[in-house]
């Protein structure tokens, strides 16, 4: 419980908490049901069996700037010096 509350296990708050839990069945039940709620959601796993790699990379290919090949400008020949 202290771990979930981000508290040091040896802190005075946690010590008081442990003392209270030892004599309060309602709080034990309350904590127990919260803990089980978390465990149930942790255990509910859905695995991804495929791979999105090819699709993502194909979409990223579209990011490339368009390269249009233009014909090279023909430069006027400089007159030959004699």
């Amino acid at each position: 419980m202290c771990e979930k509350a981000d508290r040091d296990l040896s802190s005075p708050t946690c010590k008081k908490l442990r003392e209270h839990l030892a004599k309060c069945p309602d709080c034990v039940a309350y904590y127990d049901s919260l803990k089980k709620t978390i465990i149930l959601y942790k255990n509910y796993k859905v695995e991804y069996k495929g791979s999105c790699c090819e699709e993502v990379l194909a979409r990223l290919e579209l990011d490339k700037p368009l390269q249009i090949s233009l014909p090279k400008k023909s430069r006027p020949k400089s007159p030959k010096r004699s």
Partner: protein
Amino acid sequence: MDQDAKLISSAKSGDKVAFGKLIRKYEKTVYSFAFKICRDKEKAEEAMQETFINAYRGLKSFTGSSKFSTWLYRIVTNNCLMMHRKKSHEPVVSLEDSELFRETGELQVPHWGETPQDAVLNNELKEILDRAIQKLPLEYRIVFVMRDVEGLSTEEVGKTLKLSVPAIKSRLHRARLFLRNELNPYFTR
């Protein structure tokens, strides 16, 4: 330099093979997280793809001050939020006003009895878990999944969501209580 750092550095210079390796390494984590938020396989897959596209385009802004996985969590969370806001016209519900937290005098604590912690998740129970978490407003759901299910620290969740630690703790407490109350009928019948 660890393996991730090398791949990230190559991907930053446009090496898509390196980025492909990063996708393969993290796609299961991203998908699993997206599913836990969206509770829908198609939406989770869409969120995952968008996450990697956004990650590649924004890779230059990744400085390495956090783990790459934490950075991905941030992106996938934003994508899930955006998809939810785009497709849902539900009003934003706050648990602050929920009946659950009103002062009602004596505290009633239903006992869950001998529910095994590793209870087999049959289809009925899965449906109940799905229904319960779908009722939880997304902002609370994200905190619960990040902190309790994925095991990120409160500070990491705070940084990812740009919220203070007390705000995360408050949302987490309310989310846990809400879910526990939704599951009560199943475990106390």
